[in-house]
């Protein structure tokens, strides 16, 4: 099996500020994926978070060693 299993994609134009574009460039370089792939990742995570927040759940980050928890505030 050597075939793509991703659905067909559609194209859109995106307008970003200089700072947003720099953040996107940086993430693309750090993660070694294209800017499109970064934005697709961002959309998936945002949709997942939005669903859980809508269910009344909260989002926390836990420090790997200290186990200290901090709530991430989303507006």
């Amino acid at each position: 099996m050597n075939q793509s299993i991703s659905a067909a994609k559609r194209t859109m134009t995106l307008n970003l500020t200089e700072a947003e574009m720099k953040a996107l460039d940086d993430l693309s370089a750090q993660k070694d994926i294209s800017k499109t792939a970064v934005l697709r990742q961002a959309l998936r995570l945002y949709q997942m978070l939005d669903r859980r927040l809508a269910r009344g759940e909260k989002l926390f980050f836990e420090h790997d060693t200290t186990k200290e928890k901090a709530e991430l505030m989303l507006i």
Partner: protein
Amino acid sequence: MSERSLVHIKDRRTGMLVEATLIDGVTREDVELAEGQWDPYLQKELARLQSEGVPRNQWPQHAHWNWRDKQKAVEGVLAYRMFGIEHSSEIQGLMLCVTAGKTGRIESQKGKPLVYVHFLAAAPWNLGSMSREPRFSLVGTVLITVAIQLSLDEEFDGRIGLHSLRQADEWYEKACGMTNLGSDPSAHDLKYFEMTPEQASKFLK
């Protein structure tokens, strides 16, 4: 949205490859079909194992997984992809992957995104630990191939990661060639395995 394509699994009785259908986007109906087929077989075989005095640690460890709940929980969530393999109107295996928020742990791959395989199971009649005469092989191999292909499609270079149940540790390490990063206290001490782009490329050959 559910899409179907052709894959091959091996009929153990004849040793021949047979055509099967890869389901990308397993639906509620697919899961109900699997549940209706897997559960009666599981219950019958678990009763047999019990009556034969087979120790519980040799029973299939994923027998309690509820695929209907899993499918319901991730339906419509873009980050999750659920796959199945169907042959002879029977679901031969299921896999749930997540394509966002997981990154490599191997030093050379740290911070780079990967496809994380949350759950992977072959139908109980295909398990050597459950069936005296397992019916089809290559189900797990096809599903891991799908996870790697998904990783390539997502520009993750074939990187995948997963936590393994003890009974599958050897398969992921030896047959799949994944790197064993040891027990993970944050995941019930299950062993964490990861596949690098190089290992993925070797697996696909």
